[in-house]
Every structure is written in structure tokens, then in C-alpha cells.
């Protein structure tokens, strides 16, 4: 079920009652876990851990409680190591998924939250990235700018933080718009 982005999850939802969280030492591990579990057919979601379990830049994976044991085995086999399992999702929040676009004529800017990616429409070349404040953002800027969107790895595969994850959402959107020819 999709909640409006950023909203805190109430405990009254039956589906939530049955879910728990894998916590990780860093965002990159959580993103890797999501990919591994999805590839193995699990329904999972990236969410913020509850406030009392946060260290600053955190991401956790929510999954049905009954699938916890099997999912953990799949993660270990993939060399992904959760820090902890929490048998509850109260107090979690979803990552913001607000995506907007700005047309600059020759260029298109897509924002996901406060992260932005700008492409040259005619060539699909990434001419700028901006926003955010985590240290992978300047790194992603160096890795992505000057290259075509269809020639670079996804930001979430290069980055390590929530800012990188948000930039990935902008990247996915701009690729979708370019491929659909909706940028002119």
C-alpha cells in the first residue's frame, strides 16, 4: 500500500501490524537489500526507521513479519548483513516521492524532493545535478555530468545516502520522460 510520502505511519493499519523492519548500518546496504529481496520476489519498501532508532542518515526495509526468516537467509546468501530486525513499523515514514519538472527550453530539470537533475533534451546529456547535502552528491555530480542518462549507472547504484536515493528518483523520471518523448 502506498502512503502519501513523508507521512508517519499510524499503527492502526492491519497491513502495518504484520510488518517489521530490517535495519542496516548504512543506506547503501539498505538499498542493496531492497534490490536483493525484490529480485527474490519479496514485497518490500524502503522507509525511515522509527525516531528512536535513527542516527541521522538512515534507511530501513519494511517487509511482512512472516517472511522475515526467509528474507534474512536470502540477504545473508547475498552477503548483505542487516544490523537488526525490529518486529514493528510504528513511527516509520516513507521517503518523499514528490517529483516535479521545470522546462528550460533546451534543457529539462527534474526535481525529486530537493534533489535535481538537468539534461539537454536533444542529446540526453546530463548537464547538472544539484541539491542535497550528503557527501555522495558532489561525487555523483562528478560521475554523472557530461554523460548521457542511458550510459551511466543509476545514482542509487553509485551513491550511498538518502540524497543519492532521491537523486535516483529524479534520474528515473527524467529517463522515463526522455524515452517517452515527452520533453519537447
Amino acid at each position: 500500500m502506498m502512503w502519501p510520502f513523508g507521512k508517519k505511519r499510524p499503527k492502526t493499519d492491519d497491513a502495518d501490524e504484520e510488518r517489521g523492519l530490517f535495519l542496516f548500518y548504512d543506506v547503501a546496504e539498505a538499498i542493496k537489500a531492497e534490490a536483493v529481496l525484490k529480485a527474490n520476489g519479496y514485497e518490500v519498501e524502503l522507509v525511515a526507521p522509527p525516531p528512536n532508532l535513527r542516527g541521522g542518515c538512515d534507511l530501513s526495509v519494511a517487509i511482512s513479519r512472516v517472511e522475515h526468516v526467509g528474507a534474512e537467509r536470502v540477504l545473508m546468501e547475498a552477503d548483505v548483513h542487516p544490523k537488526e530486525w525490529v518486529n514493528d513499523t510504528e513511527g516509520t515514514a516513507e521517503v518523499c516521492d514528490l517529483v516535479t519538472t521545470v522546462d528550460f527550453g533546451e534543457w529539462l530539470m527534474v526535481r525529486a524532493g530537493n534533489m535535481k537533475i538537468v539534461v539537454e533534451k536533444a542529446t540526453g546529456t546530463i548537464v547538472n545535478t544539484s541539491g542535497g547535502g550528503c557527501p555522495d552528491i558532489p561525487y555523483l555530480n562528478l560521475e554523472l555530468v557530461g554523460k548521457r542518462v542511458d550510459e551511466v549507472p543509476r545514482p542509487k547504484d553509485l551513491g550511498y545516502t538518502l540524497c543519492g536515493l532521491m537523486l535516483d528518483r529524479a534520474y528515473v523520471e527524467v529517463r522515463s520522460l526522455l524515452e517517452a518523448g515527452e520533453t519537447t
Partner: protein
Amino acid sequence: MSLLVVATYPSSGGPVLEGPVALESDGTLTIAGERIPASQGTSAMLGAACQVCAYLGVEPPVALVAGDIGRGDGTRAVFARLAEVCQRTAPTVVAFHYMQPIMALMRHAVAELTECAPGVTLMADAGGMYAAKAAGLASHFELMTPDVGEVGFLADPDVTHPAYVSHYLFGTNGFDPVELARTAHDTGGASRVLLIKGVRDHIAEGGEVVEVVEAPCVPELEAIGGTGDTITGLAAAFLGAGFPTVEAAVCASRANRAAGVAMGAKPHHRASDLVTELPQVFAENLCAWAGVCSTPQ
């Protein structure tokens, strides 16, 4: 007065660098003689700060940085050196910028600075701001420079990263920076002064908006990575040079916009293009804006 910038640079495993920052004639930035990669982020921030210091004839900023591409290793390395560098450099202003937002490290750092440099002025942007707010330390800071998305983060006491901010707080329907500045202040999520960067820049003091800078409007600047960082660098350097905080923020906002006009900003430009324009912007405007009218040394 002296400015110390605590941050990271985008290089995997890059060593800790500490020392004066120099902006070379070709636009290259060096710290203690070592070149750091030109990108958005702290290099843009430091470039703008260097231009202010050079124009005003004050000491250049001192940086304490390390390579970090998001794993947090460089962030931990700079925090480990902070107390030692503080004792040696005796900064009057410390600015935290791009870094892994780790609340525990920021709590420790603020405690160290309070002991090492009593009365030091703290400012933060980017990951430094995220960590300070999430750790409940925002009110210890004199200045923060959030963008329109980040001010929503400061105003929401329950979130620890802007990625989790509720959508209604962002710069879309119902977005109200005046109200958000007040809420951020009232809930302990704001520094004493906020410079909220956007189409209109709002400067709030004690939760109340005291200045709005909206002209010239250069929408293309939002697309250029690092042009928010240059505002932060300008404000930090003006603060370090002794400007009152609100005046530092207003001058930073005005100078960034004027440089955007001067560079003929387009979405494919670089923040370094803006930094190049700053000396001329200062020469033409700082007298009127801040009474700095003498010829730079």
C-alpha cells in the same frame, strides 16, 4: 576574525587536508597546497568564500576536509581532528558543510568547539545542517542556509533527513517560508538566523522574516549545481569578516543573484562560472549594500 570550514570533498579515500584555502587563477581550489576536485558542494562554497576574503583583504578561510563519497569515512576523519585544529586555529566562525549527517558526531563536535573556542559562531548547511537539526542542536547555531525543501525539514521536529519531509512542506502548494521559518524556530529546528534560498530568498531572525531578496531573479541558477553552496560560502565569509549576520545573509543573496546575471546563467553552466564573476559584483555593489567602499587591498 577567522573562518574554519569543516566538510568533505568528493574523493574516495582522500586524505584529511587542513589549512588555508586558495583559489588559483585558473579556478582550481587548493587546501594547504593540495588540489581538491571542482564540483558542486564544498568546493563551490569555498570558492565563493575565497573571493569574499580576497576582496575584503582578510585572511582566507581555513578548511578541515577529507575525502568522502558517501560512506562517512571522511566525515569521521574530520571530526576526529576537529578539537586539535580548533585549538591551533582559534576560529571565530565555524561552518559545517557537506558531510555525512551523523547526529552523535555533531553532538560531540559542538561540545568540543564550545570548550575550545567559547563564543564561537556556528553556521551550517548541507549535511552539517542535517546533523545539527536532527541532533537537536540547531538553536546553538547562528546561521543556517536551507533551500525551500530543507526549511520544511527544519520545521518538522520528527524527521532526521530532508528525504522524509512531508510533501506539503516543499515549495509547492501551500508552501509558506514565513510560517516554516517561525515553526522551525519555535520547535528548536532553526538557527538564530535562517537564509532560506529559493526564487525569493527569505532571511529570518528569531523566527521572523526580516528581509526578502527577490531581484534580480535568475531561475536558471536552481539548475546549476553548487549555486546554493556559493550563497553559503558568501554568507560564511561575510560573517567571518565581521558582518552582522543578517547583513551577511542579505549580501550573500544579492551577490549570488548579481553574479548569476553577470555570467548569463544557463542550466549547463558551472558554479565556478559564478564564482569568477564575484569580484566584479563586489566592486560594483558592496559599497551600496554594506558600506564597503574602499579599494580592495
